[in-house]
């Protein structure tokens, strides 16, 4: 075998094993991002798939029980009841109105069992384009003509 043949074989082995590693793990590691509406449409699939669903934590919906925390996620007027059963305490950013991302599975009764919850006060730190941050009054949007001198 020529020297380039040897290089080719070695590289093929390396790239091949990486590809194998990459593809074989996808199945066990993939998580579906869905909206609440999509979650309900998934039907039976929802129970078997690992899903991450996002939404805002409904105001006054957080009920802390022993070992579990119940709350509702709201997204485009759809409400999803969630039971958090994870081991770690919920993050500090998790509170009324926070944007949360719950990872887990939907049960037959339409309750979402979350093993992990990520939360951030998106409304606070990164106002969506064209929307004012919470603390500022809505009408006090940066005005269009405010680069006034120009």
């Amino acid at each position, binding site marked *: 075998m020529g*020297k*380039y043949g*040897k*290089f080719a074989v*070695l*590289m093929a082995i*390396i*790239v091949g*094993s*990486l590809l194998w*590693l*990459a593809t074989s*793990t*996808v199945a*066990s*590691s*993939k*998580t*579906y*991002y*869905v*909206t609440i509406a999509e979650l309900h449409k998934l039907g039976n699939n929802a129970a078997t798939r690992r899903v*991450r669903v*996002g939404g805002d934590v409904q105001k006054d919906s957080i009920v802390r029980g022993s070992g579990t925390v119940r709350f509702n996620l709201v997204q485009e007027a759809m409400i999803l009841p969630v039971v958090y059963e994870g*081991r*770690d*305490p919920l993050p*500090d*950013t998790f509170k009324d109105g926070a*944007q949360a*991302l719950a990872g887990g599975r939907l049960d037959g009764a339409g309750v979402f069992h979350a093993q992990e919850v990520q939360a*951030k*006060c*998106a409304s*606070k*730190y*990164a*106002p*969506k*384009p064209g929307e004012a*941050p919470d*603390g*500022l009054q809505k*009408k*006090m949007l*940066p*005005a269009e*003509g*405010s*680069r*006034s*001198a*120009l």
Partner: protein
Amino acid sequence: MENVGALALLLAFCISLYAIVASVVGRLKRKPFLTLSGERAMLAVWFLVTVASGILVYSLLTGDYRMAYVASHTNRDMPPFYKFAAWWGGQEGSLLFWSFLLSTYGAVVIFTTRRSHRNLLPWVVAILSTIQLFFLTLNAFVVSPFQVLAVDRVVTSVADGMGLNPLLQYWAMVIHPPFLYLGYVGFAVPFAFAIASLIEKAPGDSWIHTTRRWTLVTWLFQSTGVALGSAWAYHVLGWGGYWMWDPVENASILPWFAGTAFLHSVMMQEKKGMMKVWNMVLVSTTFFLCIFGTFLTRSGIVSSVHAFAESPIGKYFVSFLALGIAATIWLILSRLNYLKSEAELESVVSRESSFLFNNLILLASCFAVLWGTLFPVITEKLSNEKISLDAIWFNRLMVPIGLFLLFLTGVGPLFAWRRTSIDSLRKNFQLPGIGTLIVAGALLIGGMRYPYSIISLSLCFFVAATIVMEFFRGSRAISEKMNIGFLPAVVELTHRNTRRYGGYLVHMGIVLMFIGYSGHPFNQTSIGEVDKGSVMQVGAYTLKVMDLTEGDTPNYQWETAILDVSKNGKHIDTLEPTRRFYKAAQQATAIVALRSRLNEDLYINYAARTGDKATLQAYVFPLVDWIWIGVLVLIGGTLVALVPAKVARSYARTEVVGMAKKNVSVEA
């Protein structure tokens, strides 16, 4: 005030445009005064962007709450240090910061190379100005940092700002973005020189020689930036992780992989005139990944899972990347003749081949991380389902890749150029090889059952042994020849070829970091609610809650749990994990208590308080300190490599090493 700032940015935009036109036309028509005016224009841009930045910083420090940026990123009671840092704390400010760094780098380039590279400089100016033009477009027209708050076109101010995210109010986080940005922006310069020499068909490798230090400094900034981010996550986020394959983290590591590959593969070009096309591809890849990284972190496409393409600046970045990449590819293809290799690969067991595999692996990891990060975007486009890959996937893939790289770190530098003889293989690898097997055996017998940890620790020993042997052999030869002590001989050896031995030190830093990573499977966790006066057990430690206290400052309220830490019944320490509630941001955050030792860290997060009960998360993290020590060694090694070598480089490469080896074989 803000009008002056906005005007400065607009002027800078126009002058950048002028710099591009003047440089290109001046070079093509051979009009030196025109190119000179292009250079001056770039200095003017620096002045204008600095003025704009100064105004923004001044407004942040004095709390001009008429301005939208100031109101949403600072508040009155924030320490001035953090007010200053708010410059790069938000999207608008950080894009201005990018422009500022780029124009500063541009000014430095003009001052350092204005005499030596008259033919390349106009193109460099044009390319840097094009990049600048892109960022100034964003700054001046799309996301201006100088917007003011207004009600019905009447400028208004708010009483107080919203403050900086409390998680970011930590020293490492304050200096992390500047370092990362210095690294991101810095790669624009080697890229500009590479493209300039392509356009000019400049003979030789002058762009590599000119930008060698530059690349290394930039790489140092990037490494430090990534490490600071990792350290911040570990010390602040309260769960003790230092890397989680989060898209934003991935954005910072991608250009680092490509840049590391570039640093290695330019040696092939310098030494052998090989891989010319490849180096062009690598330096361009690194640069575009830097832009892509800025895009990922700044556009918000990853901050919310459902906002992947909704960001206002997203389409600008995508267009800039697409145009830039297309132009670069076209340029490289049209100059293939000029990039012909001067030598061929000769053997699989050679320095060339180890560089080749190093590059292959680094680029593969780059591609893998990129693929994993963009997986949700790709699947959404292909199947309308948004699927993400979590840390498990990244670890499955990246741990073996990392270990293979570690192995290459050990063998690569000891392979000879062209081909390696069996004799030299035995001489270099027999002792470390046997030692490595002994270490692996000892770990197995000692009861370690995690294959990756065993492999990692044995490889660490292997690489460390080869590095120590290199230093030892070279120093012994010098100490005998010059009749000086062993330690001065080590210094002399390093000084003779700083790049080589500095590089070994960097490798040593990597080894120490891998020792730290190997401790990961042995982490211990204990989470629970503990009454005042009760105890909690984690690993060998017993934690007793002595008291729960609280207090108030203008910026935040705090609660502290005072814990008595004992081991085997003996009191060893008192730890005080704290929670803070920041008033302006209405946000709680934890200040973790850490008892850091070389063998393991005891890490306690005070998660919540209910009456007289404290919810504590206690962890034991073995070997984590070695990661940070490794980072320091890596930084030190890079600094050593930046010191000019005592012996001219070409001489040092062949002669010093040859001499050392000759002496060894004579003795043997």
